[in-house]
């Protein structure tokens, strides 16, 4: 096979019916084409991947499974709740729904977020609960290949339990992928046990 033959061909809609006949004549019969078709995708196409929502909090680049992220909004007025856990900054309203706002840095005991005009909130759904998380910067969705995921290093300490993997990325450096349902469940347990 020549190198030029390996260039991936994309499906195209034939709009000019005058050339249709000549195109069809030059093509393989469908049975022959199917006989030559590969059994599975090759190379990069076959690499299993997952989509993550990537954001920065403080100096940490974090990612969560994109399927859990429902919406992104601005950090509007936060109503503090007496006796709430320290990682719960308060409650916010969004389109008639009230949700708790969580500071991941405080939750993971690795610092403290600061609210600014640039701060964003992403709403996540987990265990039937909607929770808002603070982010200093959002990078959107990124495809992470499963083969690139590394086990979380023991040096992560307390954070280790909530990390599903670490990825070395040219774009983000070290990207920490969180188990968000675990975070939400643990936050709920901490709140109840107070």
């Amino acid at each position, binding site marked *: 096979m020549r190198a030029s033959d390996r260039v991936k061909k994309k499906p195209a809609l034939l709009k000019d019916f005058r050339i249709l006949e000549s195109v069809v004549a030059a093509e393989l019969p469908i049975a022959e084409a199917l006989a030559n078709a590969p059994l599975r995708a090759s190379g990069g196409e076959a690499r299993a991947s997952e989509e993550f929502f990537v954001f920065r909090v403080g100096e940490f680049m974090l990612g969560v499974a994109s399927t859990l992220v429902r919406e992104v909004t601005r950090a509007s*007025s936060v*109503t*503090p*709740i*007496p*006796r*709430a*856990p320290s990682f*719960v900054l*308060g*409650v*916010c*309203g969004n389109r*008639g*729904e*009230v*949700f*708790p706002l*969580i500071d991941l840095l405080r939750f993971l005991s690795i610092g403290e977020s600061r609210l600014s005009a640039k701060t964003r909130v992403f709403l996540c759904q987990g265990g039937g*609960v*909607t*929770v808002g998380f603070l982010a200093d910067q959002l990078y959107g969705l990124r495809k992470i290949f499963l083969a690139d995921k590394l086990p979380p290093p023991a040096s992560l300490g307390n954070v280790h339990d909530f990390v599903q993997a670490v990825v070395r990325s040219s774009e983000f450096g070290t990207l920490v992928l969180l188990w968000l349902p675990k975070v*939400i469940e643990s*936050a*709920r347990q901490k*709140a*109840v046990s*107070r």
Partner: protein
Amino acid sequence: MITDETKSDDWVSLVLFEIAGLTFGTALQSVAAVRGGRDERGTILGTPRAATRRLEFKDESGRAQHLSIDAFHGIWRAPVNELRRLPQIVNNSSVVAGVWLRAGALILLIKLEQLQA
């Protein structure tokens, strides 16, 4: 009790007040009186700055108590469909009953009788 099947024509009467710049609400039935008087003792709701008034109420055991406030914002009728329970993650405080979504702002609804004055 707030249920998911509340009718839009259901209303509750709330007393709105302010402590340290935050507005709170409480059920009208739980307030015995609103009087003047300076008492700057704080509670978990915050420490009043001016403490010009006080809400009088009875706690769970029936004892007369009061809560010092900075301002009394009147009695409001709130439609029940604008009330929300607190999310589970923060619903650890017996003092906070829920919130009133009032024109985009959240007003914490306080159970006065649970408050330790």
